[in-house]
């Protein structure tokens, strides 16, 4: 495995822990209780389809899949996601809108579910930061 593949693998294992991290957080699930939506998170070249049901992450599937629908997408380069998931990300890598402003993330599709549940998504997306905290 070369270095790029190893790095991509590390991001894959991080994002695949998202359901466990979110669903174990009762307060966060409660914050998203009225939300059921399919979201696309693109980490580098790899799409992940995240299905949220009543604030819980029902499943996350690695793509690409043909003819898969989603409501909105957050697409970012691998370096940006890796920085974003550090326990204390550097300035301009600590928030999805900061990353979007600098061109590292792109927000696409119907942004209504994102904006109507913004505080929910902020903490869902930041949840992997807790992995590094636990490892220390």
């Amino acid at each position, binding site marked *: 495995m070369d270095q790029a593949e190893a790095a991509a693998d590390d991001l894959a294992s991080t994002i695949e822990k998202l359901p466990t991290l979110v669903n174990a957080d009762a307060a966060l699930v409660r914050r998203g209780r009225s939300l059921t939506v399919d979201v696309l998170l693109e980490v580098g070249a790899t799409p992940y389809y995240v299905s949220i049901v009543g604030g819980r992450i029902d499943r996350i599937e690695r793509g690409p899949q043909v003819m898969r629908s989603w409501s909105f997408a957050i697409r970012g380069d691998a370096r940006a996601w890796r920085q974003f998931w550090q*326990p*204390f*990300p550097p*300035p*301009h890598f*600590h*928030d*999805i*809108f*900061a990353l*979007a*402003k*600098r061109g590292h993330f792109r927000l696409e599709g119907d942004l*209504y579910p994102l*904006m*109507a549940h*913004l*505080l929910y998504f*902020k903490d869902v997306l930041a949840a992997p*930061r807790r992995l590094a905290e636990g490892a220390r």
Partner: protein
Amino acid sequence: MAPQIDPIVGRYLHVKLQQRPHRIYFEEAGQGIPLVCLHTAGSDGRQFRHLMTDAAITEYFRVIAFDLPWHGKSAPPEGWHDEEYRLTTASYTEAIRTFCAALELDHPVVLGCSIGGRIVLNLAIHHAREFRALVGLESAAFQPPWYDASWLHRPDVHGGEVCAGLVSGLMAPQSPKAARWETLWHYMQSGPGVFKGDLYFYRVDADLRDAIDRIDTRICPLYLMTGEYDFSCTPEDTVRTAERIPGAEVLEMKEVGHFPMSENPQQFRRYILPVLDRIRTVP
């Protein structure tokens, strides 16, 4: 056991703004040089409660924070339900000068954050002789907008929650969780459309890039302090502004964002105390 009470007193001041009667809420603590604090867009004077309970500051400064009309406990003027709220450079400047004059403050220091940081530049341009010093937190003559403000006021999105959600990312990840969420609570309590109305001033009306050359810091010292995690008004935005103002002092604050005084009061006092000491000791 004696009750634990903050040394902060809140009162209401009656003034006319834009020819209409207003009842303005303000809080204060301490004595000495008046230090008037201006809150951010869509929030209120509670952001400054830590300055008001810091004996190192209140020993020398009378710290005063008023809520702009429509914010906090300052009600909107009679007839508000038939109009769209919009803060302008003129109405904001009038509110500050009227407030200071009504309380008979002698050459106050004005410290403002975000929109408050923008308006202190306008005070420096047009009214420098009225003030002892001006401090802009997260201040720049102009910044490019980074989101569509129509999300802030629509019936199918909770205004308080979306406003809080947007500004949540402007704080540093190192800031204490309790202080961050308290900062967000103020946004959640803001009235419908108020944050958006403040942004009319910030985004549309108050592009001061062509006017800051006229600031003379020999008349009134100007301090510009910006948090490294503020991606709305970045340290680079502040430096770009200060480069055009001879004598303006710039400080980048580490491990804070757009709300230094409320998101991390301990970190902020490391930066603000030396500035206030200099303001106090310069005759």
